[in-house]
């Protein structure tokens, strides 16, 4: 058995079939690189007898997956100049067979029977005619950018020439994956087929009807769709495009820069040179740390997570049929909508039917706003949500998510009330961002079934669920909570019960530093821009505004009261004084109140930081800190806290921490997450920098023991 089979028909049409031995999907790695040129040799030797080629996959429902990520991750990141030269040659060699294929002089048609992503679609682009099965399983696109890469097998050159720079740059830089009908509408494929048989027959008909097929850009009179780079019509893209790449990524995503440049640069030159230019840009990403970070976290670790690395083994996969949700506020309603969208029946309970109905109304609004949900689908989704005020309606739910107020007493009351009607096997999951699960489980008669599931707001959009096991939580309960999270299309990370769990504890650090710097008299613009340049979606002050300063104020007061109640000295820190001043003295309570650290317009859109901050916190003028220090003070304490959490055994998986930090709390994605960013920085260099920061900015920057040990042993977080 070989990677590529060639099957000749009587009419001179050869079927080229990809069927990589020992794999469920075909990938573009070393084996492909070896097999494809040989197949071309053979095809070229057929001479006049060859009338056309039909390319397809031998894997049922799987066309071709793309590049071999594992192989790319193993490449030396800092090769010698000579090795880099060899590498470039290797890239060009890998591209060559596709160039030979399209120039064979016979029509080449591809039949796409499943996902054709990355390398898979690049193969398809080298064909003269592309047909895809009209099923939702077919996904077409060039998603390399999502892993910090770009297409390197001619995908940029060919898509630009096929669709023009504007369309191509959008599809490639956003890594869009399209269904067959959408790909057809965008001009990425030419035809649809209802079955593999129809696809084959359409392919052969096309070959017979188009004996002299060539790529459109090799026809005489071809012009680049949308205009050449020198054409005034493309100035919007060529002038503002690069700037927008920079400002949208804050310069943190090399792949986005390289794609923009490659799209424009390859459009300026003749075809073979364009392939050379694409190869050079592609190579920069093979040697790019950010790409390594993203491949590690979003491919290797994400696959492990999806496969259940943090799920207890030996427990059969479960699926929730009926989900009970307690509390129909924004969180409960969001989860209800999310569950119903994924086909789960939901009982949405609140204290009054009116409240529960409001929760359903939230789902109705969400359906109306969603472009992917039509009226019929909306009816189906809403039909699955059953609002109620009666606890008895929860009786046959197999899992309950409690999403009431963050108040121990209220949570205890609903736990007892609900368990009374539930089956003994039902899992009870409390949605909380910080309350201890073991303690909440005291209200439960079956704490082994009690677990924490921390959803993020808005629950229907945020991709992460933080699962928290209490002291007595069983593996069975954990497995079922994990399975539910996946059923909801979410990424579950698993942590042990400890104050703040993982995500709340980590993000708390950057918010605290933001306030501390403000209290020290640092220009708030530098604080906020520091976070954005780090790659965070928003600055710490903006984050706190969106949470509400009032909430933070009450939480701080509660903490103080709790500490004093048990006779512990209370050390509120400069950050609580910032909050106190904002709330008590100037009554700026946050975004919802229309005024916080920022000014907001009538629509609640932020304008800029409130100029009054200067009078409050920098009366003598702003304090000058190096911008790098500001950036590091926002990033490092999150990482150091995450390392402490790992050290304490609260989180068990580096991958969970990486993915959780990015998807839950907006940790900069280009870093690969809280742990991977240390590897990228260099464990020793990171430790050294933490020590420097500790000297200047306090003990929160002291490297934890675990980090010191890893630095000493030169080990990465994996």
């Amino acid at each position, binding site marked *: 058995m070989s990677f590529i089979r060639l099957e000749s028909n009587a009419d001179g049409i050869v079927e080229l079939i990809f069927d990589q031995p020992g794999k469920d999907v075909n990938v573009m790695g070393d084996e492909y690189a070896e097999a494809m040129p040989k197949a071309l040799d053979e095809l070229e030797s057929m001479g006049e007898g060859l009338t056309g080629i039909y390319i397809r996959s031998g894997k049922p429902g799987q066309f071709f997956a793309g590049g071999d990520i594992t192989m790319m991750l193993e490449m030396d990141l800092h090769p010698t100049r000579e090795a880099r030269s060899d590498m470039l040659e290797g890239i060009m060699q890998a591209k060559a067979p596709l160039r030979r294929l399209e120039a064979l002089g016979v029509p080449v048609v591809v039949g796409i029977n499943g996902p054709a992503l990355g390398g898979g679609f690049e193969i398809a682009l080298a064909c003269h005619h592309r047909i895809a099965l009209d099923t939702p399983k077919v996904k077409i696109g060039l998603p390399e950018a999502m892993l910090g890469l770009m297409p390197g097998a001619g995908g940029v050159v060919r898509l630009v020439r096929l669709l023009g720079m504007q369309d191509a740059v959008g599809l490639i830089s956003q890594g869009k994956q399209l269904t067959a009908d959408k790909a057809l509408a965008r001009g990425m494929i030419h035809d649809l087929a209802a079955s593999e048989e129809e696809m084959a027959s359409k392919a052969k008909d096309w070959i017979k009807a188009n004996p002299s097929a060539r790529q459109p850009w090799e026809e005489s009179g071809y012009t680049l769709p949308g205009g050449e780079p020198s054409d005034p019509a493309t100035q919007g893209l060529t002038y503002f495009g690069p*700037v927008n790449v920079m400002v949208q990524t804050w310069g943190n995503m090399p792949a986005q820069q390289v794609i923009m440049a490659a799209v424009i640069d390859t459009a300026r030159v003749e075809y073979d040179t364009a392939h050379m230019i694409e190869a050079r840009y592609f190579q920069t990403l093979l040697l790019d740390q950010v790409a390594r970070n993203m491949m590690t976290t979003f491919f290797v670790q994400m696959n492990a997570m999806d496969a259940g690395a943090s799920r207890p083994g030996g427990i059969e996969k479960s699926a929730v049929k009926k989900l009970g949700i307690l509390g129909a506020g924004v969180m409960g309603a969001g989860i209800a909508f999310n569950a119903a969208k994924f086909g789960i029946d939901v009982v949405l309970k609140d204290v009054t039917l009116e409240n529960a109905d409001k929760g359903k109304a939230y789902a109705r609004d969400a359906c109306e706003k969603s472009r992917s949900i039509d009226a019929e689908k909306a009816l189906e989704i809403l039909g699955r949500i059953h609002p109620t005020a009666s606890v008895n309606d929860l009786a046959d739910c197999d899992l309950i998510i409690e999403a009431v107020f963050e108040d121990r007493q209220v949570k205890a009351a609903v736990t007892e009330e609900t368990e009374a009607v539930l089956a003994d096997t039902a899992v009870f999951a409390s949605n909380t961002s910080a309350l201890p699960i073991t303690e909440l489980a005291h209200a439960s008669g079956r704490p082994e079934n009690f677990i924490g599931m921390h959803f993020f707001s808005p629950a229907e959009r945020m991709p992460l669920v933080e699962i928290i096991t209490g002291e007595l939580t069983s593996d069975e309960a954990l497995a079922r909570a994990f399975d539910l999270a996946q059923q909801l299309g979410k990424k579950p990370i698993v942590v042990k019960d400890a104050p703040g769990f993982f995500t709340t504890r980590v993000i708390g650090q950057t918010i605290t530093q933001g306030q501390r710097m403000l209290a020290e008299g640092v220009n708030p613009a530098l604080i906020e821009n520091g976070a954005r340049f780090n790659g965070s979606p928003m600055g710490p002050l903006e984050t706190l505004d969106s949470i509400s300063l009032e909430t933070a104020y009450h939480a701080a007061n509660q903490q103080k009261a709790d500490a004093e109640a048990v006779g512990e000295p209370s050390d509120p820190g400069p950050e609580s004084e910032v909050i106190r001043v904002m709330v008590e003295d100037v009554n700026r309570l946050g975004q919802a109140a229309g005024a916080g650290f920022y000014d907001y317009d009538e629509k609640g859109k932020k304008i800029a930081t409130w100029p009054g901050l200067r009078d409050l916190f920098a009366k003598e003028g702003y304090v000058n800190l190096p911008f790098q220090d500001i950036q590091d003070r926002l990033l490092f304490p999150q990482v150091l806290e995450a390392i402490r959490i790992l050290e304490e055994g609260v989180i068990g998986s580096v991958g969970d921490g990486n993915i959780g930090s990015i998807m839950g709390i907006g940790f900069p994605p280009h870093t690969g997450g809280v742990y991977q960013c240390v590897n990228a920085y260099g464990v020793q260099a990171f430790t050294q920098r933490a020590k420097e920061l500790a000297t200047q900015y306090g003990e929160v920057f002291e490297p934890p023991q675990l980090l010191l040990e890893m630095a000493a042993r030169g080990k990465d977080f994996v």
Partner: protein
Amino acid sequence: MSNDAYIYDAIRTPRGKGKPGGGLYEVKPIDLVTNLLEEMKSRHGLDTTQVTDFICATGEPVNEQGQNIAKTALVYSSWDDITVGAQLHRYCAGGLDAVNTVAMKVMSGVESLGLAGGVESMSRLGMGASGAAAGDAWVAMKSYGISQGLGADLLAQLDGFDRKDVDRYAAQSQARAARARDNGYFDQSIVPVRDINGVTVLDHDQLIRPTTEEGLAQLKPSFTTFNEYGHGDFLKFKYPEVETVTCIHTPGNSSGVVDGASLVLIGNKQAGDEQGLKPRARIRTCALTGTEPTIMLAGPAPASQKALQQAGMKRDDIDLFELNEAFAAVVLRFQQLMDIPDDKINVNGGAIAMGHPIGATGAMILGTVLDELERRDLNTALVTLCAGGGIGIATIIERV
């Protein structure tokens, strides 16, 4: 033998509005140059065989301003074949850089008499006509360039100047230029542009217009589009202390878009004597320097300080300062940093009132300030401009 470089004359065309319908729109850029070449020759009865080189700056060296417009103009004119030429591009500093370059040739002793100047037909070759290396996507992403006008807005904001400040300055520029024109201060230098039959096409600066601060306040800022479409954030890579930029520069307080050309005759003492020329001023020194390129416009003060230091002079040794009015904020910043009183800088207005024909401006304002030194019987002047990429240029002249 002294190799001092003397300015024997500095002439210019009037400046026409730089758009179709403007006073010089119908005139080819090369004719702007040859009008001046013929005037320079005839005014002084020059033996052109004694003039070695002509450095001519332009901001858009393409198409009819393309390749080497200096030599092309010489060939097309009545000048001797022995005089050669070269085109020079140093963005807005080109015209003055041409002067400095020819002066340095003379100072070196290698050449004895040369021409410097510039030409720009902005009506026929708009800004950007020649493309730009900086416009390359990859280069742009690594260089943090923003719209120059937004750079001026940023400069004003960082220095604490607001809309009122820049409009006040703009109104003053207009008033001074109008007064100077009405009193004939420019007459000696302006050479009317004539057509192929010798008929005058334009004989006065076209852009000067009656202006009030109130009127200026009505104008819309010019660079909001850049601010809103990415440049307002891009500049944070260099200025992270900025949250938002307030746009204050308008067509009223920025340099005008115009057509025009300038020409300066520079030589050593002996060459001037041989031709019976009387030196008007000596070029004491000149300086170039680079500053932060995103804001781009902060070069004049450091370049001026460098020139002063080279000349062993202090600020107070300069009688008149002539700083190109690229944007009002550029002048306000320079004045603030160098602590220069209003009545010593741009005393006859500048590019806000009369326009900034990119490559021609530097040599043009050199002539303007020299005329004024003579009129006031003062001694020294410093000419300076900001230019693309953060370039600053300065030249110090003194009358002899």
